[in-house]
Structures are given as structure tokens and as C-alpha cells.
């Protein structure tokens, strides 16, 4: 919606000679200004991450099943030691419609992994996707380097305070809509707002940590110095496990916010450009 209003205004003849690039183009009513957003390699690596991370999580949880790093003393009646299996049992006991699930301890593994008893398959797939993930990371870095967009990702000193403001906006927005109040997005003049910047910057950092902890679990003897950095073999496994949850925790609001923000934002990651040249409605005024 804001996209269409912006493009409509851009077609005004007084605006066309305004943009520096347009000066070379003969002014016609039929052109609209668009802003370059994401490099081709960044877009490709972004979307390739979807199947790659899905493959890594599914196979990774199947590997986790074989010997969970979080274990308690054996349950006297079932002999189970796995907290993740306990969560599955709890879900099947409390969620309506799941009371007759055939194997409650496997519920999580049946829904978040390739399934139990598939260790050999899971290991092969995990290595396959892990090498793709590392290659894809290089493609991403190359795209950031070629476009110079890495600068837009660098956190600033003011980011923590500004990110809190954006977070407050997101929390208050649903209530503002319900109460029909105006609720303006904090103003920013950079490519990303402070909260986006922290979130997007944390992802390549988490990816590097996932790769490093992954290698330290995979080659704990040849890379024992790396294992030591993460505090030992089991600690590295715990890091690797929680980093997976960090990706999942990122993806959920990421997807929700993209769909809330609209087609222009989604399209910018597919086609690389945006029609929101001057920001959009619902933003705080410049002061």
C-alpha cells in the first residue's frame, strides 16, 4: 500500500529531475525511481539458506536423538534419559487430539527431525548440508563485499537504545491498532533500523559460531584447540544445539514481519529493488 502511494507520487514531473541518477535520463512521466536493495549474491544465498538450514536442523535433531547432550537419570518406568523426548511426551499428554499418538517420546523427533533410528542417514545429510552452508556463507560474504552493503549491517553505538525503541513500537503496534491510535515507527535514515541491524548482524555471527562448534564436535582431536575455546566437547555440543534455536528464534519474527511489512519488502529480496524511495507512511517525522 505504501509502495503504491510512493510510486504514484514519484510520477509527478517535478520529482523526476530530483534524483541524481535521473538527471541523465530524459525526463518522462513513465519512469519511477527505485532504490537498489540487495546484491544478487546476497539474495541467492539468502534463499538458499532456507533449504540448507531446514536440512541441517532436520538431520541435526536426528543426530541429537542418538545421544542427547541433555540427559537426566533414567526414568524408573520407561528408562528414558532424554529431556527432548520428555517434552514430546508432555505435548502428547496435554495437546488435544494427540492423546493416542503412537510413540509420544518420538513426537518431537517425528516433527523436528528426519525421525528416530536414522543416524547414518542423518550424518550423511548433515555433512552434505554443512558443506553447502559454508559455501553459501562465502557467497553471502562475497555479495556483501561486492555491493558494499556490509557497512549497512555494522552495529552502531546508538543501536541498543534505538533497537529498544523499535522493539517497543512492535510490542505496542497491535494494541494501537485495536485502540485505533496512531502509533508511529521510530524514524531512521539508514538501510536498516537498529533492531534489524542487530538481528541481521547476529545471523552471520551465529553462522560462524555454528560452523566453529560444528567442526569442534566433528573433529575434536585434530581441532582440540577449537574445542577448548568452547569449553570442552560437551559444551561445544550444547553451543551447537542452542545456536540452532537462535536461528529458529530469528526466523519466526523475521517471516512474520516481512509479511506484515508487505510485498515491496519481500520483492526486494527476490528482485533486489524497492519502490520505497522516501520511506513510507506511519513513520515519525524528521525533527
Amino acid at each position, binding site marked *: 500500500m505504501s509502495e503504491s502511494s510512493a510510486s504514484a507520487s514519484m510520477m509527478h514531473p517535478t520529482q523526476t529531475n530530483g534524483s541524481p541518477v535521473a538527471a541523465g535520463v530524459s525526463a518522462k512521466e513513465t519512469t519511477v*525511481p527505485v532504490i537498489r536493495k540487495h546484491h544478487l549474491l546476497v539474495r541467492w544465498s539468502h534463499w538458499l539458506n532456507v533449504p540448507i538450514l531446514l536440512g541441517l536442523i532436520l538431520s541435526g535433531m536426528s543426530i541429537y536423538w*542418538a545421544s*542427547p*547432550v541433555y540427559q537426566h537419570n533414567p526414568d524408573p518406568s520407561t528408562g528414558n534419559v532424554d529431556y527432548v523426548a520428555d517434552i514430546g511426551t508432555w505435548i502428547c499428554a496435554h495437546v488435544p487430539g494427540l492423546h493416542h499418538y503412537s510413540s509420544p517420546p518420538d513426537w518431537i523427533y517425528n516433527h523436528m527431525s528426519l525421525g528416530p533410528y536414522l543416524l547414518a*542417514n542423518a550424518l550423511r545429510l548433515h555433512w552434505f548440508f554443512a558443506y553447502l552452508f559454508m559455501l553459501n556463507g562465502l557467497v553471502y560474504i562475497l555479495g556483501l563485499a561486492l555491493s558494499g552493503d556490509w557497512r549497512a549491517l555494522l552495529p552502531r553505538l546508538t543501536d541498543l537504545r534505538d533497537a529498544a525503541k523499535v522493539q517497543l513500537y512492535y510490542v505496542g503496534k497491535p494494541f494501537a491498532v485495536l485502540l485505533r491510535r496512531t502509533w508511529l515507527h521510530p524514524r531512521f535514515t539508514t538501510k536498516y533500523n537498529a533492531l534489524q541491524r542487530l538481528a541481521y548482524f547476529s545471523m552471520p555471527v551465529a553462522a560462524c559460531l555454528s560452523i566453529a562448534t560444528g567442526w569442534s564436535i566433528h573433529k575434536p582431536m585434530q581441532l582440540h584447540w577449537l574445542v577448548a575455546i568452547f569449553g570442552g566437547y560437551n559444551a561445544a555440543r550444547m553451543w551447537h544445539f542452542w545456536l540452532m534455536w537462535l536461528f529458529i528464534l530469528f526466523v519466526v519474527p523475521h517471516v512474520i514481519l516481512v509479511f506484515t511489512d508487505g510485498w515491496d519488502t519481500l520483492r526486494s529480496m527476490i*528482485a533486489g529493488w524497492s519502490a520505497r524511495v522516501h*520511506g513510507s507512511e506511519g513513520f515519525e517525522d*524528521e525533527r
Partner: protein
Amino acid sequence: MSADENDSQVKQEPEELPSASKRSRPLPKAGRLFQEQTPKIFEAAPRDLRRLTRRDLLVFGAGSLAALASFRYLLPQDTLARLGVDALDSPRKERFLNGALRFDDDVAEAIYSSDRLVPTYSKSQITPLKNNYEGVTPDPSYIPGWRLHLEGLASGLSLSLDLPTLLARFRSHEQITRFVCVEGWSAIAWWSGLKFADLLQAYPPISQARWAGVNSSLNLDENGNPDPYYASLDLATARHPQTLLATHFNGQSLTVDHGAPLRLLVPVKLGLKNVKAVTKITYTVDEPSDYWAERGYSHYDGI
């Protein structure tokens, strides 16, 4: 229309984008390198934009379908069955995934160094080591008649050695190292035994040999029937100074649980290469068969 657009029109300064004006202050050179750049703005005909968007969406859709197809191709049959999808089970798929495994093995072999010692621990750091025999643990009655057979020797002979001979002939070494299972668990244990390198020196293999096939004919399946176990071990790893033919565990003679009277202890490999109750070692030029590699696991298993 947003407020700042109105402002710029009123002020007759349409070339000053609000985002650009904030960045027009001169900065020191180092600061400029890290400074976010003003985004590039292009003029384009809506018709061209529609055409490019259509093209990119088609590529995106094709890519999504390709990703779905490759998941259907790559995922295990059991997983697809649960999703209600028919699996495409072709030998090409197995070859492809084993290719990924081989690639990873080559990486593991490339980062292996025979001088890199694995970390050792103190006695206070020892943790329990479970008996991970897949099948039934053999009855200890085999121990008195046990012998180690050596084949593929440079002498052309087949040797058969008993435990007292081995203990008398070779110096015993001890080490407290971590034992890592392919399943993910690990344990710190105190082992002692002879160095595989010493055995190789005393009874040299044929000159072209690159592999040792380490067998146990004593292994049993879950019903107690014989299920010989065999692992391939590259001689570069066999010669590693911490690769032992262990006879003692935590200061005591090995028990059947841990592969009495002699087991392979190779801390730079996953546990599944650490063959219990070794009965025969055969030196070969080509890679010998490996029990778990035949069941979809890696061949090299270097960690």
C-alpha cells in the same frame, strides 16, 4: 504521501533526499570506509520493472520447486513415508550421499597429522565408559584360548601370538584419553597396552601395504549368533603414537565388556573403529571392508 516528501517539495530542494542529507558531513578517511553508503536510486519504466519482477519470480519459483525436488530425492525413505510421499530410491542417490561422506573423509584425512597428539587427562577426570556392544556381550570362556593372528606380513608368514607373548615382547604404555562415539557421547578412560606402531615395527607388513583390516570373530549379534566385526584402519593412523592395542582399562586387565583380552584403542578415530577382542589383523594394499561403512557410515571416521 509521507510528510518529508511534502516538505522537500515546499522547500524546492527535491535533490536533497532526507537520507542523503544526514550523511553529507565530511568524515575522516577511516570513518568513511565504515560509513553506510547512500543507496543508489534508479529511474525505471514500470513496464520494465514488471518484466524484471516477473522474470525473477519465475526463477524464484523454479528454485523453490528444485529445492522441493531435491528434498524428495535426498531425504531418507522413512522420513518421506511419514510425510506421505513416495520415495525415489535409486542407486544414484546412495552414490551421491556416499560421495558427500567420501568428501568429508578426504577433508578429515587432509587435516590428520601423525604428530598431533590428542589431549590427555588426569585420573580425576575419568568418566564411566559404557559397554556399547551392539549385540550380546561374549562369554569370557574364549579368553584363555585367545590368540592374535597377523596376516599380510613382509615375511610372507601368518603369525599367531598369545597374550603372554605380547605382554613380554612389547613395552606397555598408558594414556588417559577421550573416547568419542559416532552417536555423540564420549568418555574419558585410562588405557594401557602396546603401541600399534611397535607391533608394526616388530612384524612389518608387506611393503605396499596401506591398510590394516582389524577383525574380531568373537562379536555376537543380538541373538547371540556369531557376527564377525571388522574395521578398516589406515596405517598412517595405526602408526599414531597414541594408537594402542590395549590390554588394560582403568588399571585392571580388560573385561569382556571392554574387549578382553586385547582391543584396538585409536583415539583419533570414532569409537566404532576401536575393535574389541581383536582376533586378526590383516595388512592390505587396498582398503579392506568395514562393518559400519557397509551400513551407511563413513569409512575413515577420523576425528
